[in-house]
């Protein structure tokens, strides 16, 4: 049970898991959380880098 868990990341995993209908068994949860912590730590490293508002994303599409 994660209700009332003080770690907001656990609540976040619960909420997003439900919103996306992703099954997360209790046994998988520690590994999912550990991986999410890595992803968010690395994403923060990118997030904190200042970029001009005009910067275009580099995703590829040609009409």
């Amino acid at each position: 049970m994660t209700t009332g868990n003080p770690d907001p990341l656990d609540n976040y995993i619960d909420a997003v898991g439900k919103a996306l209908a992703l099954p997360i068994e209790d046994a998988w949860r520690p590994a999912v959380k550990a991986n999410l912590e890595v992803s968010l730590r690395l994403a923060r490293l990118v997030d904190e880098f200042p970029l001009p508002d005009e910067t275009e994303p580099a995703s590829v599409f040609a009409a």
Partner: protein
Amino acid sequence: MTINSDDLSASEIAQAVAGGKISATSVTEAALARIAKHDSVLNSFTDVTADRARAKAKAIDAAIAAGQNPGPLAGVPFAVKNLFDVEGLPTRAGSKINRDLKPSSRDATLVERMEAAGAVLVGALNMGEYAYDFTGENVHDGPSRNPHDVTRMTGGSSGGSGAAVGGRLVPLALGSDTNGSIRVPSSFCGIFGLKPTYGRLSRARSFPFVASFDHLGPFARNVGDLALAYDAMQGPDADDAACSTRAVEPVSDLLAQDIGGLRIAVAGGYFQKNVFPEAVEAVARVAKALGATRTVEIPEAARARAAAYVISTTEGASLHLDRLRQRPGDFDPAVRDRLLAGAMVPAPLVDRAQKFRRWYRAQVLELFKTVDVVIAPATPCVAPKLGQATFVLDGVELPVRANIGIHTQPISFIGLPVVAVPIPLRPMPIGVQIIAAPWREDIALRVAHALERMGVAAAPPAGDF
């Protein structure tokens, strides 16, 4: 006199077959015999397409007998990572789940182009599940094993490709590289690998992983063979939305060109951290041979690696969202848990990673105005032991999986062409990245060829297995 094709290069085979000195059928039978004899140890093949290979070889021999040109890869056996569509096989992409797919009705574009050049497909190769892997281990099929020490990893995710070429079962193989999956097995297995510019080679009818970064490319034991395969596979393809419309730019005839005028530098900073002495030694040998005394800083490489990680985990999660919902128990648990986490990364952070990618690309292109080639380690270490979870570097224990690709990710992040060249250290080889500006595969291959001529880069003989 009977020619033994076991130790011939792809170009030697093609010349011998085209010249009528050996038949494509006998070359194919020899390759099938090597696979039958050695692959129970290397575990590099998941499918051997013997009937198809024999039929193709027979057709080549008939074409030669009829006076037709059999193509530049006449009778050359090759195999492909099992994420390439092969007609009649489900494209498993290293997974259990995909085995339930219908058999492919048509080959991948690159398989078609290799066979149009006369090559003979002999099978599909083991890989890490859904290519989300740097080890070459696979929970469903077992690990592919390193031909220089079968207790060690091949590297991944194109592990079977590394083992099959390094272990001399085939002279050529194809693989994919999203974050390093051609360059890492090339390094660990002591062979040459080419990750071309993003968009250069068609990915049509191959199973994707991260659309932003997915590349396909060849493995070989010498640069001439690598170029021969690369030339055979180039060209636009409307079936891959990211494939460039550039015309074919053949490189095979350019390899021997002098490299004296090229500006060559060693990557500093990030690329000189977290490396074992073997990687330092390999880069130093290459730099010395090329007379490269200059060091350049690729700006914000650590952040580039972080952004590549974020985009990979989120695009991978998007790709597999339905499978995560419907068959989570059938994934490799390590892959599943990474993908589930990837599905939870907020969208603005992914968008910022793609914006950072644009910024980083501009910086690196600016750097390439002052340099033609950048040298960097392909892996921080030689092949770890199978199952090894951590290694100790400078007294710090680090996770193996997370660190194998730290030097490859910032490069594929912006699609730069790279040749991974093997430096035959003992007892285990290790690779070095020869990195060029976009669309300059010719430069990277010429430098690799020069290193081969100087005896600095070479695919060492495989061990006993």
